[in-house]
């Protein structure tokens, strides 16, 4: 029985492992954290259907639990990769017939954009923090009071040369719209402002949701990037932006600022690229063999990609990638016979 190692226990990795097992492979799923689920663990709801993230995750867990021949190794970080062997941080080495890398992405550290005051001012939070708050059912300001005006800033750590992240993280726009709606549902009297550079509603139902946010939920959209955040005398956050559609600077005090932090490439990627002859894109994400016919394969035979390791992707795309990569692995192993 052929042995496949799937690195990364996020949605793409879980899906891929389960699909591989269904095709009668022996699968080892490596996860560096203590639990599976990756980035959507702790996420509240998924756009555009407001499906609880837990629902997707428990579906995947069930799929893994029901599968035969899967070894799940949590707390295991891969440090060296080749198509036949994976070395773990613990020093252990695992032999295999193929490897699927599904290590996903790293959330941009909002602290780097220090002008937004994350980690400096209370009530400047990231989209991930907000999801956590939603999960706890406790969206409040630091002092426990209810926010009356909330700003959501798009493209924090995306499309920004100044932090060396030129790419678009793809999902933040729609996340911002989703979170705006959820905030309005929670606090209908609050004013929610989305500050955006472009609104990229690329998926099915996204544009409709955007429109609903505007028209039904009365979420304000201001085209302009917030330039700086500072405290106000009334303890609010003073934000400054340009309302580019009127060509005038705009400023206001807000109670809460949500930063839609982007996806950036894992720091590991360049290491893998250097040591395993894999190719990186200028963005730092891995380069698939090509963008069309072999987009879940690496340039190295026997090493495959699934999910956001190659580019920012949404959950659905990552899941598709996982399944596709499994089929590619199977096809490749069969062609080798």
């Amino acid at each position: 029985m052929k042995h496949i190692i799937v690195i990364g226990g996020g949605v793409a990795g879980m899906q891929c492992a389960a699909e591989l097992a269904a095709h009668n492979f022996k699968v080892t799923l490596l996860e560096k954290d203590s639990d599976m689920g990756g980035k959507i663990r702790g996420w509240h709801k998924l756009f555009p259907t407001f499906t609880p993230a837990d629902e997707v995750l428990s579906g995947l867990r069930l799929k893994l639990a029901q599968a035969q021949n899967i070894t799940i190794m949590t707390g295991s970080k891969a440090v060296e990769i080749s198509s036949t062997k994976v070395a773990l941080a613990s020093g252990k080495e695992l032999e295999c017939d193929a490897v699927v890398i599904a290590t996903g992405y790293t959330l941009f550290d909002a602290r780097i954009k220090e002008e937004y005051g994350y980690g400096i001012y209370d009530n400047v939070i990231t989209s991930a923090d907000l999801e956590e708050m939603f999960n706890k059912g406790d969206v409040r300001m630091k002092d426990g009071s209810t926010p009356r005006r909330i700003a959501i800033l798009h493209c924090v750590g995306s499309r920004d040369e100044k932090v060396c992240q030129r790419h678009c993280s793809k999902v933040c726009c729609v996340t911002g719209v989703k979170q705006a709606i959820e905030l309005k549902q929670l606090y209908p009297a609050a004013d929610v402002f989305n500050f955006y550079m472009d609104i990229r509603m690329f998926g099915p139902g996204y544009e409709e949701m955007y429109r609903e946010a505007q028209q039904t939920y009365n979420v304000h959209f201001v085209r302009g990037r917030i330039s700086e955040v500072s405290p106000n005398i009334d303890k609010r956050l003073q934000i400054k932006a340009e309302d580019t559609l009127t060509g005038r600077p705009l400023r206001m005090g807000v109670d809460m600022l949500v930063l839609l932090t982007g996806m950036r490439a894992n720091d590991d990627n360049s290491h893998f690229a250097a040591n395993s002859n894999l190719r990186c894109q200028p963005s730092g994400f891995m380069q698939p063999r090509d963008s069309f016919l072999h987009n879940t394969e690496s340039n190295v035979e026997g090493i495959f990609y699934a999910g956001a390791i190659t580019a920012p992707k949404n959950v659905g795309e990552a899941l598709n990638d996982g399944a596709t990569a499994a089929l590619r692995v199977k096809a490749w192993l069969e062609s080798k016979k």
Partner: protein
Amino acid sequence: MINFGFSINKPRVIDLNRNNLNKSKEVIKEMPELQACIGCGSCTATCTAGNLTEFNFRKVHTLVRRGEYQGAYEEMNKCMLCGKCRLVCPRGINTRGVVMLIKRKLGDF
């Protein structure tokens, strides 16, 4: 008061802390679809009055929504209400209704 030969320039900033947003809220409440504007500018591009003057419907209603009312009534009065903008709006906004509503809220109607 001394004349220094110059004066303090009026700030161009839209200050949402200072602006009185009541009228803006009334406008949005009566015409929620106005919020669906994506600023494409097709209304302004096709505007009969906008091709003869500096009237910019998109800009004026955006400013009104931000609580910048000064001059909005006078600007909206440049509109001929011909309705081309409504035909081209990709979001189906009742632009003529918006013009009339803003004039009603900000003028003497």
